[in-house]
C-alpha cells in the first residue's frame, strides 16, 4: 500500500510540483492544502503517514505551518512531519525535536531540487526516522565546535557525525563517503565513545541521541 501524504504549501506552483513529484514516487496525496487551519484539520482528520509542510503559511504568513505541525503532533504523538522552509533555524529544529519521539524532518526548500534525496527523506520520516538539513547540522556543529569532546573528533569522525545527525543510516553514510559499512560502524563506535553516549544499532535512536547531545552541548 502506498504511503498517504498531506502537503501544505501556499505557492500553487510549488504545491503542484510536490504533488506530482510524490505521486510519481508512489505516494498517495490525500490532501494538498494552502493555509494553517486547513493543515491542522487535514492532519488530525486524515492522519496521514507523512506530512510535507511549509513553515510560512497564510493567514498570518509567520510560522503558521510549523505551529500547526507542532499542534498536530501534540494531538497525535509521533505523527511524521517533514517541514520545509526558505531558511533553516536551529531554534525551529529544536522545537521539532523537543518531544523526542522522532519522525520529524526539517529541510530547506532547495532540497526538493534533488528529487531522489528529497523522496528518500520523506520516506525516512514516514518510517519514523529523522531528516535534518545539512545546513542545520552545520550550524549546530559550528556553534558547538569549541566544546571539549567535539574537538577531540577526527575530521573523518566529524563527517560521519554530520551525516548521522542528518538522520542517515550506516549504509547511506558508507555510500556517501565511499567507505565500507564496517568502517562507518567503527567510526560511529569511536564517536559514541568519545561523546560518552550509549551505543545503539537502531538508526533512529542513534540520531536522537546525537541530536540531543548537540543540543545539550549548546547549554
Amino acid at each position, binding site marked *: 500500500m502506498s504511503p498517504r501524504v498531506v502537503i501544505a504549501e501556499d505557492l500553487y506552483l510549488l504545491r503542484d510540483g510536490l504533488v506530482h513529484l510524490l505521486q510519481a514516487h508512489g505516494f498517495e496525496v490525500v490532501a494538498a492544502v494552502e493555509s494553517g487551519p486547513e493543515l491542522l484539520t487535514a492532519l488530525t482528520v486524515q492522519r496521514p503517514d507523512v506530512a510535507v509542510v511549509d513553515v510560512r503559511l497564510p493567514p498570518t504568513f509567520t510560522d503558521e505551518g510549523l505551529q500547526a505541525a507542532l499542534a498536530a503532533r501534540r494531538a497525535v504523538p509521533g505523527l511524521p512531519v517533514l517541514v520545509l522552509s526558505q531558511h533553516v*533555524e536551529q531554534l525551529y529544529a529544536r522545537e521539532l525535536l523537543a518531544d523526542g519521539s522522532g519522525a520529524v524532518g526539517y529541510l530547506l526548500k*532547495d532540497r526538493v531540487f534533488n528529487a531522489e534525496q528529497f523522496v528518500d527523506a520523506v520516506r525516512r520520516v514516514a518510517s519514523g526516522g529523522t531528516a535534518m538539513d545539512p545546513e542545520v547540522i552545520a550550524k549546530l556543529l*559550528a556553534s558547538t565546535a569549541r566544546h571539549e569532546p567535539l574537538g577531540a573528533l577526527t575530521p573523518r569522525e566529524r563527517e560521519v557525525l554530520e551525516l548521522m545527525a542528518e538522520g542517515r543510516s550506516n549504509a547511506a553514510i558508507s555510500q556517501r563517503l565511499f567507505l565500507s559499512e564496517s568502517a562507518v560502524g567503527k567510526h560511529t563506535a569511536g564517536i559514541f565513545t568519545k561523546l560518552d553516549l550509549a551505543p545503539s544499532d537502531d538508526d533512529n535512536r542513534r540520531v536522537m541521541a546525537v541530536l540531543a547531545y548537540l543540543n545539550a552541548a*549548546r547549554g
Partner: protein
Amino acid sequence: MRRLPLRQHVVTAGRALALGTMAVADTVLIALIAVSTLFMFVGVIVAFPPTVKLVRWRTKLARRLTGRWLGAEVPASYLPPPPPVRPQADGWYRHERQLYKTPWWPEWNNRAKWMITDPATWRDGFWLLVNPFVGGILALLPLAMVGYGLAMPWYWMPQVAPLGLVVAAAGLAATPWLLRFYGWWTRLLLAPTTRSLLASKVRRLDQVRQDTADSQAAELRRIERDLHDGAQARLVAIGMTLGAVEELMEKDPAAARALLAKSREASSTALTELRDLVRGIHPPVLAERGLGDAVRALALDSPLKVTVTVDLKTRPEAPVESAAYFSISELLTNAVRHSGAERVWIDISGRGKTLRVTVTDDGSGGADPSRGSGLRGIERRLAAFDGVLAFNSPPGGPTTATLDLPYALVTPESDTPRMPRWKWVIVSFGWGLGWLPLFPQGLVTMVLKLVGTPERSWFLALYLPEPLQWPLIVFNILLGLTLYSLAFALPLVHSQKHRMAQLAPGSLRLDE
C-alpha cells in the same frame, strides 16, 4: 519641617544679600555693555563677541546660583556654536564673497552671526538690564526692612520699638518668598522657551533624518550590488546553460545532462545567496516570531554561550524591532570578535513604553566606543527612534552595552493619564451650572436693573436692599464666568502639562 529655623533664616538672608549685591553690581556690567554698544555705533564692532561672552558668563553664574540656592534648575539653551572654518583647496579661507589668508576673520564673522541670531543672547541681555531693579528690590528690600525695623527705635522713636520688631520680622519672613519669586523670574527669562526646546528638537530630528536617509540609501545600494553580482548573474548563467542544453540535447545527451546538473547547482547557490541577503535585510525569524525568538535564534548560532532572557508583554513595532535586533546582532558579533568572552547575557525587557536591552559579556573589556564604526552604526540605527546606547567597557571587563528605546512599546491605555476625579467634578459643575449665575441671575438681572422695571420675578438680586443689588449682580456675572473658564481651562491645562512632560525628557537630552 525645618530643624533650625534661625540658622535657615540666616542662610537665606546671606543668600539674599549676595544675590542682591550681585544684582546691583550688574550696573557696572550694564555700563560696560553701554560703552561697547557705543563703540559699535562708531564702528568698532570688535567689542561685540567679548561683551556677549561676558553676559553669558554672568547669566551662567545666575543660572547656577538659582539652581543651587533657589531650587529652580535653569538649563541654558544656546544655539550650537558654528563649526570651525575650513580652508579651501587653495589654502584660502572664504567668507561669503571674500577670501582671507587666515581663518580669523571668517571665524569671527561666524561667531558674531551665531551670537546675534540666537534669541537667547537677547533674552540674556534683557535679563541683565532689568536685573539690578528686580534683583535689587526682591533680594535687598526684605533685608532693608529688617535693618530699618531694628534701627528705627534707636535713632528716631524709641516708643515704636515693637512696631520696628514687627517690620523686621516681616522682612525676615518675606525673604524666602521674595527669593523664590526672584528665582521664578530668572527662570522665566533664562530658561529655554518651549520654542527653543522645539527648535533644538527639530535640529536634532533633522540630523537624524539625514543620517537615516543616508544609511538607507547605502543599504539599498548594497542590496542592489549584491543582487546584481549574485543572484541576477547566476540566473543569467543558468539561462545560458539551459540554452546550451537545448542545443546539445539531441547531439550529445551526456554533455547536456552534465550541464543540467551544473545549472541545478547554480540555482541552489543563487538561492543560498538570496537567503543570506534576506537575512541581512529582515531576518525571517524576526518576521515570524518577533524579537525574543529572533534573538534566541541568534544566540543559538553564536559560538559563545549566550543566555537570553526576554520579558516583553507587547510586540514592538516592526521597524523598532528590526533596529533592536540588528543592534543586538552587532553587539554579539563584537563580543565574539574582540572581547575574548566565553559567555554573554542578553536581557530584553519592557518598562512602560521603553524597550531596554542589556548585553553583557565576561570578556576582557577595554573596548573603545569611539574607535569602532559598529557602535556608531548602532547609535545611528537607534537614533531614528530616539533610542540611545550606553556602552561601558572598563579594562578587565565586563563589557556592558545598554540600549534604551523610548516609546518603542505601545501600551494599550491612552497615552494621556486620566484627570483626577475632583477636576472632573469641577468641570462638570462648571459646564452644568455656569449658566445660572451668568445669565438669569447676572446679565438678565443687570438688563432689568438698567431698564428699571418693577418686575422682580425670581431675580434674587432685586430682592436685596438697593446698595447691595449691583455688587451681587457683578458677583454673579463673575461667578458664572469663572465657572465656565474653569470648566474650559482644566482639561486643556491637564493635557498640555502632560504633553510638555512628554516633550521635556527628549528635548533636554538634545542640549548636551
